[in-house]
């Protein structure tokens, strides 16, 4: 079986982003970009399924500008077999991303589409569920353990109440949580090898997709800052301060 893995190019999680003064967005020029951390986990999980003999091919897909190919190369260096780049300079929101992924899914017929639970730029947490809806497939979001057994899988999900296990028929969409695995480091020879692996490119028009109605961003602002507090010198001082506020 094939596994299709979503790979989004996002601002690296270590970067402290800055809101532009004119409210037009977040400054991304010259900022370090990386693969969305949840997608790295998705790639890793797909590779582990392949290494365990449960999958034959791992295909990485990104939707984004030309530069997103860097993230595809990372996925290929990690071990993905080939990659698909749906090239666009537009801002692609989850419903459109899901429609694009649906079109590729129809073409490639993977048994599992493995996506991150959320992209850490827009924190939407929607694309996997939307793709599952469009395909009328099962979804198992926020996965922390995946056991594939023939035509079904048991997936443990991290939910507010604890750990929930679902049994789902394949094909299905699974979204990854942080504790699913620890992604491998790529080694230099793998990076060299990845350069020879194929990347197929499409435009959105070529896929025959209608972009979905979009949410319009009216402005971007900095969040309300918390007042800087004080350092207290002792437990007594802390307790007195909390008592004064009526907190203890």
């Amino acid at each position, binding site marked *: 079986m094939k596994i299709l893995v979503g790979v989004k190019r996002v*601002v690296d999680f270590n970067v*402290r*982003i800055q*809101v532009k003064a004119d409210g037009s967005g*977040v400054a991304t020029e010259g900022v370090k970009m990386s693969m969305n951390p949840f997608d790295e986990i998705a790639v890793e999980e797909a590779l582990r399924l392949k290494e365990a003999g449960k999958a034959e091919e791992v295909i990485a897909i990104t939707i984004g500008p030309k530069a997103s190919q860097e993230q595809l190369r990372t996925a290929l260096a990690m071990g993905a077999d080939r990659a698909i780049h749906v090239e666009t300079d537009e801002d692609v929101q*989850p*419903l459109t991303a*899901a429609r694009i992924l649906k079109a590729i899914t129809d073409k490639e017929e993977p048994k599992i589409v493995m996506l991150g*639970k959320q992209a*850490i730029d*827009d924190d*939407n*947490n*929607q694309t996997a*569920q*939307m*793709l*599952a*809806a*469009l395909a009328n497939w*099962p*979804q198992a*979001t*926020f996965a922390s353990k995946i056991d594939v057994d023939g035509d079904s899988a048991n997936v443990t*999900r991290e*939910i*507010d*109440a*604890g*750990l*929930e*296990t*679902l*049994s*789902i*028929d394949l094909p299905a969409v699974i979204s990854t*949580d*942080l*504790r699913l695995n620890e992604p491998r480091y790529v080694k230099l020879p793998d990076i060299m090898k990845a350069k020879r692996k194929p990347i197929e490119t499409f435009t959105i028009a070529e896929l025959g997709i209608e972009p*979905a*109605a*979009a*949410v*319009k961003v*009216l402005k*971007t*602002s*900095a*969040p309300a800052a*918390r007042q800087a*507090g*004080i*350092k*207290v010198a*002792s*437990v*007594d001082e802390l307790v007195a301060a*909390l008592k004064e*506020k009526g907190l*203890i």
Partner: protein
Amino acid sequence: MAKVLIIAEHDGKKLNGSTARVMTCAQGLSAESVEIAVFAAEGAAVAEQAAAISGVTKVLLIENPANEHATAAILAPQIEALASEYSHVLAPSTTFGKDLTPRIAAHLAVPQISDIMRVESPRIFDRPIYAGNAVITVEAPEGIVVGTVRTASFSEAEKTGSATIEKREINVELPSHTRFVKLETSGSADRPDLQAAAKVVSGGRGVGSTENFKVIYDLADKLGAAVGASRAAVDAGFIPNDHQVGQTGKIIAPELYMSFGISGAIQHLAGIKDAGTIVAINKDPDAPIFEIADFGLVGDLFEIIPELEKALA
């Protein structure tokens, strides 16, 4: 005028406090009606709790053995069957709502607004991006507005209502491709719920071990507080995952948040920005958590906690 449908979150017996928070958000929509849908196997008790939330016009109770567990693939088609009667479909931005609502939005061919933190108008909302380091004001396009509500941004609505409860049957085909197997909870049911607690005591990697976490639990019990944790503490296996606070864990807004041995990574801070008072105890004077703490105390948590307990006794 807006007609709002709220999807209740519950465990079959108890309505989750998140539902009353979504109600407060819905009050900002100048709605003509706000209805709450309870999907359950047997949901009379939950429906009654929902009917008591002030401002609710009507509670819809949809009972079906298939609704015993909140499984998105099973709930979504039923909600879609109802949706055309409403202008807004809202659920809390908890793992329950996050899992469910995008599935509905996709079938309705509308985008979703995730983590609504402020209502500017019935179609214009503020929501956080980049772990809360920026806020965008967004406008929903034409069609039904499907959204999740960031529970830490809204308080629970009062419970002085007595809305009517109407049983509904929804006859749509439900898929059999998704089956509930089990739910493992961490068994801290006798402690306050992290997302609803007025006080939270939280431990990080600095706590060092599962055994050491006992000091965090003991202090929490003394204060009547819930217990939280950083991702590093959860990853190290000190404490189960449902205690994680932050961008990818729970977003909370207690009156008092006390952190011990947590450095204050932006992903952790994303979960506590709405806390009333933040207290940080860390042995590193340069730990970033001190930049946002109202009261910081530099020192070893294993020395400070016993002193605190003495002072509180």
